[in-house]
């Protein structure tokens, strides 16, 4: 959303480094870490809970592709989600995420008619039992806070006449403590532009939304304002300053705009800072704020709206 104080030291260090610095590979002897279970769990409005369980491995450990599922993933765990009224045990599915690459996901045993679907303003407990370890967490689905509108604008400096800036109008509710995480998706194979429902988008194009920024309404509580919305991209993807954040003419753009609770926001904020700050020599390491008791990761609620825009050629 805005340049932050931790981005510019990188620029200066970069300049100094490109002028004089030298680097070399080193061997770092680290102690054997304690094994911890990592939760990546989400529950969205109208959707069943989805939980991925992985574990940490020594920092320099190599991955053997054939043993990857057992090395990285936690299998045969008991995973329960409760909304206070009923509890469902999630089951383990193998999911193909790329050519010959499989991952493991825990979700509702009946995906077509799940026992628990996310609903705004409700609280959901997660319990994971694996061997002698029990992990617990709670999350909350806030009320949905949709965008007012989406439109596009041509950036003035675009000499090739190819790029567009996606613009949006957002009316922040008058209460402090509204947190947003958004995602964007270019050119989904199927999407009904007349709906703000994310369910079909989710079902059809799972994993194809790219994360954008997170927002905290401390800076704009209760205001309605227009601002450019950058195209999402994975945090570890290289940044091309010429195209960063822009969409292209002819794109169909879907924006998934999700209200999230504070603990969920804190996780992504500290995670982003930790991952970005990683190569910043000035920053002390940021500990990631997890809401998982006895483990790492996040159990987070999303109350999302999907908005779409077709940019003409």
């Amino acid at each position: 959303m805005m340049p932050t104080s931790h981005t510019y030291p990188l620029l200066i260090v970069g300049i100094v480094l490109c002028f004089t610095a030298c680097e070399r590979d080193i061997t770092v002897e680290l102690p054997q870490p304690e094994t911890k279970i990592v939760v990546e769990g989400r529950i969205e409005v109208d959707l069943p809970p989805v939980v991925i369980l992985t574990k940490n491995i020594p920092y320099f450990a190599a991955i053997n592709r054939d043993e990857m599922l057992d090395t990285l993933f936690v299998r045969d765990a008991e995973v329960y989600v409760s909304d206070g009224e009923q509890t469902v045990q999630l089951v383990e599915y193998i999911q193909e995420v790329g050519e010959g690459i499989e991952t493991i996901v825990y979700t509702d045993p009946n995906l077509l008619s799940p026992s628990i679907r996310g609903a705004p303003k409700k609280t959901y407990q997660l319990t994971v039992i694996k061997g002698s370890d029990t992990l617990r967490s709670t999350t909350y689905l806030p009320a949905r806070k949709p965008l007012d509108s989406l439109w596009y604008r041509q950036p003035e400096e675009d000499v090739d006449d190819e790029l567009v800036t996606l613009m949006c109008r957002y009316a922040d509710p008058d209460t402090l403590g509204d947190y947003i995480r958004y995602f964007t998706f270019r050119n989904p194979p199927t999407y009904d532009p007349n709906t703000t429902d994310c369910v079909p988008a989710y079902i059809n194009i799972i994993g194809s939304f790219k994360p954008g920024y997170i927002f905290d309404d401390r800076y704009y509580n209760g205001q309605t304002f227009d601002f450019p919305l950058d195209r999402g991209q994975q945090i570890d993807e290289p940044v091309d300053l010429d195209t960063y954040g822009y969409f292209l003419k002819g794109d169909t753009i879907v924006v998934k705009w999700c209200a999230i609770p504070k603990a969920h926001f804190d996780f992504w904020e500290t995670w982003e800072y930790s991952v970005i700050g990683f190569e910043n020599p000035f920053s002390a390491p940021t500990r990631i704020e997890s809401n998982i008791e006895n483990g790492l990761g996040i159990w987070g609620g999303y109350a999302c709206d999907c908005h779409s825009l077709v940019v003409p050629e």
Partner: protein
Amino acid sequence: MIAKTRHILCIFIVALFFDALPLHAQQKFTLSGYLRDATSGETLIGANIIVEGTGKGTVTNNYGFYSMTLPEGEYTILFSYIGYETIRRKVQLDQKVRLNLQLQVKSIEADEIEIKGQREDKNVESTDMGRVDVPVEKIKTLPVVFGEPDILKTIQLLPGVQSAGEGNAGFYVRGGGPDQNLVLLDEAVVYNTGHLFGFFSVFNADALKNTTLIKGGMPANYGGRLSSVVDITMKEGNNKQFKGSGGIGTIASRLTVEGPLVKDKGSFMISGRRTYIDILLRPFIQGSSFEGTGYYFYDLNAKANYKFSDKDRLYLSGYFGRDVFSFSSASRQFKMNIPWGNSTGTLRWNHLFSDNLFMNVSAVYNDYNFEIGAQQDNFDFVMYSGVRDWNLKTDFTWFPHMQHTVKFGLDYTYHTFIPSSASASAGDTLLLPDDPNKKYAHEAALYALDEFEVTDRLKFNVGVRVPFFQQVGPYTEYEYDHLGRPTDSVVYGAGEPVQFYWGVEPRISGRYRFNRQSSVKASYTFTNQFIHLVANSGTTLPTDIWVPSSARVRPQRGAQYALGYYHNFDDNTYETSLEVFYRDMQNQIEFRDGYVPAANRDIERDFVFGEGRAYGAEVFIKKKYGKFNGWMGYTLSWTTRQFDDLNDGEPFPATYDRRHDLSVVTMYNLNKRWTFGGTFVFATGQATTLPFSRYLVDGVVTGDYGSRNSFRMRPYHRLDLSATLKPKKEKKFNSSWTFSIYNVYSRMNPYFIYFETEGDPLTDLTVTAKEVALFPIIPSVTWNFEF
């Protein structure tokens, strides 16, 4: 603690009283005056005045003034200052005598044939512990990175003082954080001492006269910081003739002009410095993603003084410096401008009430500001932070008796703290920030100290400082719910008290002299620190934010115990010392785990509090005289912190922990034309925190950090050499060349470690640790001139 202080006060008063008794028995008279440099008229700070044959004496104060009261009689007095010809003067003391003298700079040849028995033995004689005076002229022949002489980098070569990192002007003293050093420029506090992230200090050596470092046994006239005092004085300006000097260096140039306002009565000095890094780097960054980046810094120092009478003198001095970083993307509408820097202004009045009562009154203004301005499309963003002080102080020095030097005074500061405040606008909509929550505070202190010689062998410096601190309104104190949202607030009006602290700080040091060559000293110092800087990194950054003590943030408190043995050899040619110290620090501050910098958030909510401890031993060997001179300092120390909320409550090594720290500094004056310098440093590797394991979040490799500062980087060591050539002197214009080689054997000292990942995190990821070294061998040339 109050009982202890009362005890010290009693000793102080009784000692003064008993010493005053003989006054009735024998008539005494005062010898006083100023000592100056004969060529420029600059006052000499810390010059020695010794009564020949007795070993008794005094030193000039920060304004070059001395005073001593002796029984009636005829005396031979020696006036000496290192690097100057000693003056021996017979004085008939049957009335009060004012003796203002001008000392001539000593030539190199004269240094070799110096008369024995006159060399100063201040380190053995005085009660000072851990005090080092560094005349700025002396550092100019030392090798430095990019050829920029830097006083803060020179003091890092002293034992007990550690560099904050490669090429960095930031420093740590005896296990204390960078905010625990009181850095004064003509009495004004300098809050941020670094340009370009600390690679250069804000102090332009051309504008400076003297630097005093006190790292232990801080006397009662200083306070407000736990670790050290760096007291820097600017040149006053030549009061005899107009002079200019300057230098053209690899990345910066300097120019200084000085001269009399009224000959022998008043003078001025103005000095400027600017870098041209931006111009030099431009070709290198053209076409890279850094194109459009600009950076420069500049400094301006100015000082004027005027002597109204022999009793009154007025000084006005100031500093203004800015770093400016800018970035504009050529391919998109993104612009960023980041200026930051300090300004200080000091007005001082010296007054002599009598020949043995000297007063200085100072009015000081200083501020530090940091700002980021950024624009992209219709989005505007401004963030600023800073600190501003108005300070009034009065210091008296009273020389009632040969055995006593009494100092007392009071000090008052009004602080304004501007936390990191942001405002932004998107098109016509102003995205208003929260209340930026400025904080205001009064800080005051009273002090008194007496340096008294009990016997020829035993001398004490006993003092007490009583500081007060009050945070005042306007201020709104919030209570927060578990989601961090304000739920309740208490509003304080302008000037209304919010939180009050005070303390009693006993300061005592003593010296017992075995003979002319050796002494043992001990000191105890207790200090409070009411304003704090919590850095999220090991170095000082422009984004660093100072905060006051408040209801939540209690004052840092520290006690330091030191014991030392001092021995001079070969008629004070060699000074040696061994000091051991132990420091106990309460209410130390760090950021909580999971802290993320954010504007408009009261930073103190992100603090956690704990304790610190440091102990160690320092060895110092110095050769002061001769063609070949220099020093060697070695420190063995341990520094730990313990915070209930960090590292599972287990103690951990502080970022400032270095087991071994060695500095060797040598200078060799070959002849009138050539001077050579060399420095070698060795330090245990820096403690850092590394991830012990990794995991995936959203398919991105994420580190899980091990215990705090549990990893050590490789040791740091480096050799620098310099050669200074002074061509034959000309009548009106002199110049010199300083050739410097930084990091002669190009040691790739670790600056930081990062990890590179390659491949798919799920199938074939490889992780490599990379160690980045900042400066390989760097030769530089600086041309200095005088006219």
